[in-house]
């Protein structure tokens, strides 16, 4: 009688046990999806996200081994990689495959791929990588696509439990991979914003806010290091500065100088120049260094003329307020310079060095109040119709022979 009863309930009990197991499995998977958000949602680096994503996936399915990678399809370089219980040389082989562009082919049919022995594919490259993945004991491939260039995937080995990856598993894998992609995208966005901010802060010292925004928005190339380049250097100096400093109390002198430098910097920025430095009362501006300009010399001369004109307007105000005015002389030269970050690790400054700068400085020194003097090298780059007159050549320290001088007559 007992045997009969046991027999009667054996089937339903087994069914109940199976249902209970299935319920446990589904609860575990639901919790996993929630936990995944916690494990990858707050991480800063894509590499950390990828590591945790791989772990979460492997733990969910009990995968014996696995790896995750993202490769740049344009450069063929692996950008991020993480693995668990895989061979030591895996990364080398994967790097070679990424360089050969195999991953482009692998992810062509999007969607999860179950890998099996003897798998045949019409594409030669795809076949190579499928064979390789299978030889590394990978049994499933989950493609990842962050953007047009950044692609990769997750390879998973056999399940410890010994069963195959089911259609249900593939659905969950797809959801987890998608969550990973979103987290990586977000972290890259944050990284980009930080990078933009750092560029903004650095460039704001030398360029106008408008150009800084252009550099960031258009991802313009900024020349920051150790290059030789042909630029135009504008050197401007206040005439008779001792008289001004002796006749004004310090607070008023600072006010006057700040107003003067602000206005001059505005004009330089407006003409796409960068502010190299202030040396005492002198201004060094460079055209065509940080931002490449097709015609740096005309831009520099245009700035010089605007500086002179603006100064004559401001002088009326300053005469009334401070009882004196500011007169400047400007030298402009065009030629090759070395540009780059110069200084000690504690204080680096982007600057230009070379004879071109020295000659501009010398021309500025020679210029009388209100004069704009340009070298032959600058003059040759200007519109021939620009009002000018040729002055007697001058000697410059370190240069053999005299240098031709052209005055730009702007008044």
């Amino acid at each position, binding site marked *: 009688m007992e045997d009969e009863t046991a027999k009667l309930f054996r089937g339903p009990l087994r069914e109940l046990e199976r249902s209970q*197991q299935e319920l*446990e*499995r589904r609860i*575990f998977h639901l*919790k*996993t999806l929630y*936990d*995944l958000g*916690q*494990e990858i949602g707050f991480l800063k680096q894509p590499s950390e996200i990828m*590591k*945790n994503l*791989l*772990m*979460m*996936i*492997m*733990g*969910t*399915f*009990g*995968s*014996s*081994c696995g790896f995750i990678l993202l490769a740049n399809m344009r450069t063929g370089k692996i950008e991020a990689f993480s693995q*668990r*219980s895989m061979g030591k040389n895996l990364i080398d082989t994967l790097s070679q495959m990424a360089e050969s562009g195999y991953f482009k082919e692998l992810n062509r049919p999007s969607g999860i791929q179950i890998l099996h022995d003897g798998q045949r594919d019409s594409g030669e490259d795809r076949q190579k990588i499928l064979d390789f993945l299978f030889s590394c004991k990978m049994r499933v491939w989950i493609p990842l696509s962050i953007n047009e260039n950044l692609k990769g995937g997750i390879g998973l080995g056999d*399940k*410890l*439990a*010994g069963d195959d990856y089911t259609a249900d598993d593939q659905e969950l894998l797809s959801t987890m991979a998608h969550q990973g992609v979103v987290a990586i995208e977000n972290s890259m966005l944050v990284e980009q914003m930080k990078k933009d901010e750092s560029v903004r802060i650095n460039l704001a010292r030398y360029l106008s806010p408008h150009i800084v925004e252009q550099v960031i928005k258009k991802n313009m190339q900024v020349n920051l290091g150790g290059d030789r380049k042909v630029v135009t250097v504008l050197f401007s100096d206040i005439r008779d500065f001792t008289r001004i400093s002796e006749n004004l109390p310090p607070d008023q002198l600072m006010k006057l100088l700040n107003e003067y430098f602000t206005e001059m910097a505005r004009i330089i920025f407006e003409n796409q120049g960068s502010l190299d430095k202030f040396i005492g009362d002198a201004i060094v501006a460079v055209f065509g260094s940080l931002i490449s300009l097709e015609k740096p010399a005309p831009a520099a001369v245009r700035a010089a003329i605007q500086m002179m004109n603006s100064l004559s307007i401001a002088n009326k105000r300053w005469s009334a307020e401070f009882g004196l005015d500011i007169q400047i002389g400007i030298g402009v030269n065009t030629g090759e310079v070395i540009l780059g970050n110069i200084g000690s690790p504690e204080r680096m400054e982007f600057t230009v060095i070379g004879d071109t700068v020295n000659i501009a400085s010398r021309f500025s020194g020679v210029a009388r109040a209100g004069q704009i003097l340009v070298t032959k090298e600058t003059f040759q780059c200007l519109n021939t119709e620009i009002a000018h007159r040729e002055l007697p050549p001058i000697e410059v320290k370190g240069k053999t022979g005299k240098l031709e001088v052209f005055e730009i007559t702007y008044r």
Partner: protein
Amino acid sequence: MTNRDVEISISKKNDVSIINIKGDVTANTGEAIENAYQKVSTDGAEKILLYFDKDGYINSGGIAVLIGIASESAKKKQTIRITGLSSHFQKIFHMVGLTKYTAIFPSEESALNGF
């Protein structure tokens, strides 16, 4: 050893190295357990008992850490036993196949018995 949400300590009973794990085992805290396993392995442990906290939580990331340890211990011919797991996690460990590499015991005493 403390790693945010998890606290690990190592003790020894006879020839069994016991790794006591208190707190949540996750992808982020798993490194502390891996380090403890590496330490007892370097010290020559052949029998290792992972003693979990019944109130602790183990997520999939933590399970991946345990899979790594189970896989490495198999290569090193170490024996790993587990105790302190709630019935829920016993089922999960079974589901993901960890019980193929390790045996789960209801108490420390039963785990050490005949180890």
